[in-house]
């Protein structure tokens, strides 16, 4: 049958090269550029000589921040599992009242950038905060405890969502099958359900770990010394750039380790098929009189994650007061315009770069096209502060003309958010049947015209969604913006950072709320994409 012939064609290596050599080469070149920043870091580190590197590696502060980073990552992950898994079970497996409502509420904290959350908590419970009188004497919002608390509250939804997906996709007839094979409910759950749900939990936990490890804003605002904070401190201290570079490479290695773990577990869980489809409505646990206390759990999480930050920001706006215009920190609307313009440019640039990569990875099965697609994730996985530093090193040492210019900042956004655009574009390319292009060409249309008249109109929704995502995430990006923005070029994010640093919390309320709104919009874009895929 012809389908056999076609399936065979996909795996034949010479075919793609035959037809879209140009696209693949272009994509490969782009990927090389995307990976390049790390090369500058390595060059810079090597340039310092082995003795100094060794000294930095075994220095006292290195050990301290490694322990701190591991503690923060570990505790945040544990906390996220402790909150995310019970919430997932409650919203999927029980007869909790208003389950749909609580599901949305439990996922919503993802919308709040964690550094805004940290800012809200500090501005409420920190020194000179709104609610400082409620903090017991001797206790402080700063440090490990506060950082773990805030980070957990805003990243646990990763665990919640992946666990939920695993629970939803679990086919409960398997449980019934186990029970007909003489297993008690508990034994059946342990031997059949658990192995299928566990990969979902683990996948979410690893996402949390990666986030905690690379997050810059939260530990910085909460004054807790981890890799990201120290990299920034060293960067800002004249003469300590070398230390920042070595720390960055160390952080990259640790990140790589977590990523390797994640890809192994990801592959394993795909094999075990935790995303298998099936009936899952049968095993509802009746809560009985536990209903009310059970509802209090998601409700209190919602208060902490949503009501507190938004409420605090709103209170600051209402209060206005002396802090608002003091110290030359007055908010100007041009900051907003700056943010929109630079993010718009980044979105456009990223989209242009993403299209050839998406085409080559969706249409050809060569090693180069696979490598290219993987490479785009490199910038995504690189902690923002490390990427920012790498480009600072590049700019100050190799390309002074670019240093602290908008093109370099836009480049950082492209490198960092390329996978978002590639992802949405690629999935829409995959939905375009390749025979459509062949049909166009047998109707006398050239390859380029076929792309313009057939492929492009069909992938437009994916391309636009990708651009929107990049636009919205660029607007809220903190560390790279902080390191690379040109002098005098203030965005919403750098403004929030500056006034928070100086303690003028009131001034940051409006831009911070705006950033929450922006993040909410990006969530909507993602959800609408998922809706398209389903339909």
């Amino acid at each position: 049958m012809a389908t056999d012939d076609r399936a065979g064609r996909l795996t034949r290596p010479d075919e793609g090269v035959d037809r879209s050599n140009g696209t693949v080469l272009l994509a490969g070149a782009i990927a090389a550029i995307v990976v390049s920043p790390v090369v500058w870091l390595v060059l810079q580190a090597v340039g310092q000589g082995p003795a100094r590197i060794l000294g930095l590696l075994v220095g006292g502060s290195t050990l301290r921040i490694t322990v701190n980073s591991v503690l923060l990552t570990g505790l945040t992950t544990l906390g996220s599992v402790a909150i995310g898994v019970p919430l997932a079970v409650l919203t999927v497996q029980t007869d909790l009242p208003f389950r749909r409502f609580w599901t949305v509420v439990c996922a919503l904290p993802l919308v709040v950038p964690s550094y805004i959350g940290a800012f809200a908590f500090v501005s409420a419970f920190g020194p000179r905060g709104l609610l400082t009188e409620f903090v017991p004497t001797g206790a402080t919002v700063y440090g490990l405890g506060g950082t773990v608390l805030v980070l957990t509250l805003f990243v646990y939804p990763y665990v919640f969502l992946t666990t939920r997906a695993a629970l939803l996709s679990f086919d409960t007839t398997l449980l019934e099958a186990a029970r007909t094979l003489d297993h008690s409910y508990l034994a059946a759950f342990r031997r059949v359900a658990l192995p299928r749900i566990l990969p979902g939990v683990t996948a979410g936990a690893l996402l949390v770990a990666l986030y905690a490890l690379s997050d810059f804003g939260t530990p910085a605002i909460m004054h807790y010394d981890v890799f990201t904070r120290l990299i920034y401190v060293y960067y800002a201290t004249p003469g300590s750039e070398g230390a920042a570079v070595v720390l960055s490479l160390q952080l990259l290695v640790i990140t790589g380790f977590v990523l390797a773990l994640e890809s192994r577990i990801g592959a394993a869980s795909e094999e075990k098929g935790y995303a298998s489809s099936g009936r899952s409505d049968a095993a509802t646990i009746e809560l009985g009189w536990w209903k009310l206390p059970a509802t209090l759990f998601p409700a209190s999480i919602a208060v902490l994650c949503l009501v507190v930050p938004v409420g605090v920001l709103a209170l600051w706006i209402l209060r206005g007061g002396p802090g608002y215009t003091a110290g030359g920190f007055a908010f100007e609307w041009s900051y907003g315009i700056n943010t929109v313009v630079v993010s718009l440019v980044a979105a456009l640039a990223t989209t242009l770069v993403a299209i050839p990569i998406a085409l080559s990875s969706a249409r050809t099965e060569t090693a180069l096209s696979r490598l290219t697609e993987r490479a785009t994730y490199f910038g995504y996985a690189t902690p923002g502060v490390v990427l920012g530093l790498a480009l600072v090193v590049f700019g100050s040492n190799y390309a002074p003309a670019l240093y602290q210019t908008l093109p370099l900042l836009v480049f950082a956004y492209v490198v960092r958010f390329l996978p978002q655009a590639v992802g949405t574009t690629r999935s829409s390319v995959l939905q375009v049947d390749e025979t459509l292009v062949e049909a166009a060409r047998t109707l006398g249309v050239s390859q380029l015209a076929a792309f313009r008249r057939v492929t492009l109109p069909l992938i437009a929704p994916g391309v636009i969604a990708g651009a929107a995502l990049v636009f919205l995430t660029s607007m809220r990006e903190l560390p790279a913006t902080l390191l690379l923005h040109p002098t005098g070029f203030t965005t919403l994010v750098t403004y929030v950072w500056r006034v928070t640093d100086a303690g003028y919390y009131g001034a940051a309320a409006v831009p911070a709320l705006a950033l929450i709104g922006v993040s909410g919009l990006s969530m909507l874009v993602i959800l609408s994409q998922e809706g398209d895929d389903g339909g």
Partner: protein
Amino acid sequence: MPQGDAMAETDGTAEPSTRIGTRDGTPTADEETVVSLEGVTKRYGPTTAVDGLSLSVHRGELLTLVGPSGCGKTTTLRLLAGLERPTSGTVRVDGEVVAGGNAFHDPEERDVGIVFQDFALFPHLTVAENVAFGLGEETDHEHRVEELLSLVGLSEYHDRQPSQLSGGEKQRVALARSLAPEPAVLLLDEPFSNLDVGLRVEMREEVRRILDETGVTAVNVTHDQEEAMSISDRVAIVREGRLEQVDTPEGAFQRPRSRFVASFLGHASFVSGYVSGETVDTGIGPIPRAAIDGLAREYDGTDVDVMVRPDDVTARPPAPDEVPNGEVVHRRFLGPTVFYRVELDSGDVVGCSHNHAEEVPLDEPVKVELSAEHDLAWFPTGAKRVADGGTDDAR
């Protein structure tokens, strides 16, 4: 004697290239060739999909490439369309070399149209825009589009979206779209395989009507031998990248040039026989030499296999004075007919189909007789006999 030559070839002794075009594949003077393949080979790494294939398509005919899955028929079609580049060999369309030597014309530079298996309608364009796609962007083609839509009976579907169409309607639009630029040859890639069984037969007739009306030359690809025989002017049976036979449907069915063709086009049994004078002695009795198609004298005194189709033989309970020559070992009810598998005393197994009213008991001795009124095909013995229902040649 061509028949004898064909026999030799199926035993694998002849060069594959001499296999083609000796009987009906050779174009005569009044049959103008529109498309030709000459020794075309396509390799993918170590796999050879098309192996030195030569074929000519005549103006106005519908030729069907038919063969089992993975035989290379779709690849052949894609080579014609320019969607694949041949490893070697020459492809001509309307006398012009479009692939071969250093020449390679892209699909858009060839005068070919193609109807894809899944129709490949552009989902973002209306029916009319789909049909007008190949007519160029600059000018207005409203008249031509109307003409084609009325040809395929979809005039009122002008502004519909492809997603609103049924399978049969999509097929009509795809046909109209590929006919619009008036291609020298229309290629059909398993066009009926995505349709419901009921619709398939109807669309077969409909497509044949449209092709006849436009007079276009067409090459169809299918794995369904019934479809191939019912709509084609000629069929080309493809196996493992090579042509086994090119013939009219009747010719290929009655006079298959290989056991593979015999079995692929319909159920075939082979009964062994010994050529002695004016008869061939077989397990179903002596068959007159005259009833066997072109049995050459040099096969006197040798063993041959005679091909019988299920409707060529009947099995019945023996009369009291008759000696039975076989036993029914299998019985399958097929509705209008009943299929029996009879093991002959000679060891051969033959399939016979009867009217369902005639009842022959299972596991009883029967008398099997030849009831065919046409010549029978034959093959020299020497290779492993293809048993009842088998589809593979001896190697």
